[in-house]
């Protein structure tokens, strides 16, 4: 081939820079999926090419869908079940409340849970995942400025439903005491903690008080379910530790590493432990402190929450008192809360973690009641703006373990405050952030 021809060919190759737009490719792919789905659904029954076609389309789906989510079977099955096109099903996955395809999305989710009734862990996971989705949807709406009250309410309702379903599974007879229990409990605990963060974020994005009320409702639900999950976890961990402690005592080698260990074996087996300081610590002793630490953390967190609530209530009482309200009953309630908290500490020292946790929860509740009893007294509009700055504290992330000097840091919207309050808050908020960060670091093991 002569050089001129060669040149021509080189020139032609330069045209390779012409490509289709990414957006175009993406959209086309979606449409191909839709097209394939149409044929599949329509021809599902009684085509003589059925098996060939099915395998063809299966390959199309497997390769057209983004690699991460290979949802071929569930989606198509669901589409077939629902009689909607596979394309709509696929497209609905990212839809938000208020959009046309949103009901399809919900139906898809429901179908997924239906498909997994036999697998407790899987089903619980789905409910937990869906609950998180509900909050993300509100977040997305809020960011677009489309977080209408009705939509938020609906989403939160669904959020609560999903949590409830997960709880039901967790507390069902077949799950309690099983291996799945820890797994599901951990999932639920993590998800609800994450929910709190999401709710804090959303609360910063919405303006209306009504919306905030609804979000508070969601928050309470998150806390409640987090508690439930934590309790199940503690129960499971405690029984693990008991088992481990038993092994320890039978082999009769106990390294006196910390008092908690000692307490456990004593409590569990009632035997005296040998204070043998050996380097060859057996496995049981090594395993126990870790779970120990986890349990302690969980209890401490709850106690910190309770302590925070108590302080908050106390401040509120002082304020109300200065306005002439009758705070006698409330003060008694606070005293009760403090007693419960002290009780909780005792139980913690005895390594009775589950009970300690429950006691701390009670303390929190008592403080809450104390505060609420006073709120009811002044529920009229005139005092609304003064009451406002107390409610915003609900959106506070779990305090750090060492933070017992409950600071009044709030992430809510601004309200009527004095200058000194504001300064105090800034300081406390800094402290809180540092401790929170520190806690996050510690959790990274």
């Amino acid at each position, binding site marked *: 081939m002569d050089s001129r021809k060669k040149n*021509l060919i080189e020139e032609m190759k330069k045209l390779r820079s012409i490509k289709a*737009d990414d957006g175009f490719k993406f959209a086309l792919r979606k449409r191909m999926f839709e097209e394939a789905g149409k044929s599949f659904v329509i021809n599902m029954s009684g085509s003589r090419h059925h098996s060939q076609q099915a395998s063809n389309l299966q390959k*199309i789906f497997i390769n057209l869908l983004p690699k991460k989510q290979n949802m071929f079977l569930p989606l198509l099955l669901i589409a077939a079940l629902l009689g909607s096109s596979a394309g709509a099903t696929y497209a609905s996955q990212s839809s938000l409340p208020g959009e046309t395809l949103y009901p399809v999305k919900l139906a898809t989710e429901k179908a997924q849970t239906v498909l997994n009734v036999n697998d407790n862990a899987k089903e619980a996971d789905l409910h937990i995942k869906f609950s998180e989705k509900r909050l993300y949807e509100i977040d997305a709406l809020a960011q677009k400025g489309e977080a209408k009250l009705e939509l938020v309410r609906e989403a939160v309702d669904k959020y609560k439903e999903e949590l409830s379903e997960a709880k039901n599974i967790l507390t069902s007879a077949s799950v309690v005491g099983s291996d799945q229990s820890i797994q599901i409990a951990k999932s639920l605990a993590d998800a609800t903690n994450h929910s709190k963060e999401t709710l804090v974020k959303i609360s910063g994005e919405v303006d209306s008080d009504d919306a905030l009320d609804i979000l508070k409702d969601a928050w309470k639900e998150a806390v409640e379910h987090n508690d439930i999950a934590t309790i199940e976890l503690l129960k499971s961990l405690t029984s693990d530790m008991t088992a481990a402690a038993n092994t320890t005592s039978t082999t009769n080698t106990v390294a006196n590493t910390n008092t908690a260990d000692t307490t456990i074996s004593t409590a569990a087996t009632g035997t005296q432990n040998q204070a043998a300081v050996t380097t060859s610590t057996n496995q049981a002793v090594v395993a126990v402190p870790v779970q120990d630490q986890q349990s302690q953390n969980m209890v401490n967190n709850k106690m910190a929450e309770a302590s925070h609530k108590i302080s908050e209530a106390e401040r509120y009482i002082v304020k109300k008192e200065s306005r002439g309200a009758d705070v006698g009953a409330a003060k008694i309630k606070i005293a009760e809360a403090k007693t419960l908290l002290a009780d909780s500490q005792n139980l913690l020292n005895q390594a009775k973690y589950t009970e300690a946790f429950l006691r701390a929860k009670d303390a929190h509740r008592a403080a809450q009641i104390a505060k609420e009893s006073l709120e009811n007294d002044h529920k009229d509009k005139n005092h609304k703006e003064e009451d406002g700055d107390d409610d915003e504290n609900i959106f506070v992330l779990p305090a750090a373990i060492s933070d017992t000097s409950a600071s009044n840091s709030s992430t809510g919207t601004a309200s009527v405050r004095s200058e000194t309050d504001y300064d105090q808050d800034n300081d406390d908020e800094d402290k809180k952030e540092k401790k929170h960060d520190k806690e996050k670091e510690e959790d990274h093991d």
Partner: protein
Amino acid sequence: MKRDNEVNKNNNSLDDLMTNYNELVDQIFRFIYLKTNKKEVAEDITQECFLSTIKYLGENEVQNMRAFLFKTARNKVIDYYRQKNRVIYSDEAVLANEKISSHDDVMVKQDAKMVAEKLNLLGEEDRDVLMMRYLEDLDIKDIAEAIGKNQMATRVQIFRALRKMKNLI
């Protein structure tokens, strides 16, 4: 000169379509664009190609996916021109003037403009085979299938097309 064809001929051609989706879309789009010189039109026709291929695959097997796609693309472009009431083209009838005036050329880089224009002056089939052969690196076998001729005839066509283009300077 033939690059390593990552399309494994042993596989089902459907796999070819799916696993090489991105690459194939680019190829078909480019091919159609250079024939029609309008980006939107090229996108529409590309879309039609792939969608009709999917439909077709619902009932049929396709052995050679790449050839099939190019064949479809060629047919779709013919349909497009027919729809627009163009004179039915043949190898000899060149609508060069019209094509050049309706360039949008947004996609062709400066240094490639020359060759793009030369290509436009060729007959449809001449241009097609050159693009398939040198731009898209298709096998002779594939090109033959795409244009509906035997392999020998295809080789001859390519040879002659290249010579014509050389002489156009």
